[in-house]
């Protein structure tokens, strides 16, 4: 049962500027100041880290983790971010989630700027955006029972817990008895289900999944990807899906941004990027992944 109906992008009133008079010369995608369908808008984002200094006279070396990154995630969209280690995808994710501050640039969530806000000003973001991490072994506190793990985001936000834990466990396909057990008593796939239940607790609009299936066995990977797809449909979620595997992103997402060296080198509908990669890096990435179909 969907607990909250999603807003399909087509319903938004200010979305389509297509009713321009036909006599005019066709307007070529004038950059709209406010895109009502946009949920996350990233503009000109830079993040520079400084390495620890190695000399007394010179400051540490600067590392450009993100260079001028801009992207828009629309409501209800499944947006994939692909890149290898060091590509800047984790830095971007941390900034999207308000876990780090950019050196320059802006991140707007639902029209509100989140960069530079103190933690107490980020409540609207914490309620509406939740994360599922790669390794459910290290993202779940081994000393907490599943009941408390799943309820923790609610408690932290001061929201009522009530019967929500049982509801969430059912949603992710775990038995109610799971609530009394500890994370180590579950397999990797089940732990990832717990992590998903926990992320969904405050009824977020956006689910950010950071390599959610990379640590899982092949036979359970499908279960988790199916579950994510079902939840995104039922709850009308917007999904930001980070992976190193373009094939997985192609199965899950409609849109993809390929990152390399702190920049987005290519972005667009995932099927186009898959079939006709424009950037040499994307091509190299596609060629490097061994596929059974290609080998047999």
């Amino acid at each position: 049962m969907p607990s909250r109906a999603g807003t399909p992008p087509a319903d938004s009133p200010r979305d389509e500027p297509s009713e321009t008079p036909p006599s005019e010369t066709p307007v070529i995608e004038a950059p709209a100041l406010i895109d009502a369908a946009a949920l996350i808008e990233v503009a000109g984002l830079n993040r520079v880290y400084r390495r620890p200094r190695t000399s007394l006279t010179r400051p540490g070396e600067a590392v450009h983790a993100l260079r001028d990154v801009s992207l828009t995630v629309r409501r209800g969209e499944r947006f994939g971010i692909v890149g290898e280690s060091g590509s800047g995808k984790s830095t971007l994710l941390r900034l999207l989630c308000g876990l780090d501050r950019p050196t320059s640039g802006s991140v707007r969530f639902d029209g509100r700027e989140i960069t530079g806000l103190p933690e107490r000003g980020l409540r609207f973001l914490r309620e509406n955006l939740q994360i599922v991490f790669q390794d459910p072994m290290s993202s779940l506190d081994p000393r907490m029972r599943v009941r408390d793990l799943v309820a923790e985001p609610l408690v932290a936000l001061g929201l009522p817990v009530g019967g929500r834990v049982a509801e969430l466990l059912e949603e992710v396909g775990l038995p109610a008895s799971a609530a009394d057990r500890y994370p180590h008593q579950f397999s990797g796939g089940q732990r990832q289900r717990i992590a998903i239940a926990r992320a969904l607790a405050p009824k977020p609009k956006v689910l950010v999944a950071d390599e959610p299936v990379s640590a899982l066995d092949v036979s359970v990977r499908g279960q988790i990807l199916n579950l994510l797809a079902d939840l995104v449909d039922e709850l009308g979620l917007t999904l930001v899906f980070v992976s190193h595997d373009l094939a997985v992103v192609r199965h899950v997402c409609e849109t993809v941004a390929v990152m390399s060296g702190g920049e987005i080198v290519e972005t667009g509908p995932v099927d186009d990027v898959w079939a006709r990669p424009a950037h040499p890096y994307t091509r190299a990435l596609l060629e490097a992944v061994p596929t059974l179909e290609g080998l047999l």
Partner: protein
Amino acid sequence: MLSVDGLDVHAGPVRLVRDVSFGIGPGERVGLIGESGSGKSLTALSLMGLLPEGVTASGRATLDGDDLVGVPERRLKRLRGREVSMVFQEPMTALNPLMRVGAQVAEVMTLHGRPRAEARERAVHLLGRVRLPRPEQIARAYPHQLSGGQRQRVMLAIALANEPRLLICDEPTTALDVTVQKQMLELIAEVAPALLFITHDLAVVASVCERVVVMYGGRVVESGPIREVFTNPRHRYTEGLLAASRLTPRGTRLPTIKGSVPAAGGFPDGCVFRNRCPHATEACEQEPALTGDGHAFACWHPAG
């Protein structure tokens, strides 16, 4: 060359690996695939005599007539790193952070009796052989100064140092980026004398090996030539695993294997896969034997 016959691994009363048999010929590249808990890594570790404390192996495994299982440490020491060597998954934890990598490559040779100066010289040569740029400089670097892919190449140089007859690789590319993985796989296929390649990734195994052994629940459930097994799987587990690793178009359901891999010791009697198998019947309470020449499988209701 390598022959494993009826290998069992126990942790106290729990049998973790049961009756595993396979062989590797000279120059052959064999893949050992399975999910976590399938016993694939324990099988490899027992061939190296590196099982953790409290875990014991029994059965028979020989490399050109030399016993590998159930022999005293003193005899194993002479084989390990010389006749059989291994590349582990995590190059960060497998290398000594306080030692320059050249010295680490040389160490495995001096331990097996090569003079120190000669070992040093050869270490640089080996680092070049695994295609590290400027091997003289790399030899003087510490592991933390290298990238993950470079560290894994150093591991490979160590493994190859004494020209072993058999190289065992346990998920050597799992921690690496895909573009680096591709180079590493090509390199392994090129330099390995005979290879036992352990992985959970079917596509990786298909790109490196000629033959495959599929493990589940500590048992070999199917084995045979890669192309044969992957295009015409007979065991229902192999069939399910292959289906699950093919990503279908967006908006469609991915095929899955129901349930999850049981914890060690929690596998059912009879056919180990029967509690997850859609074709299981009463017959599966009896243990199926691994039968077949070339392409062998242990299933009462085989596919195809």
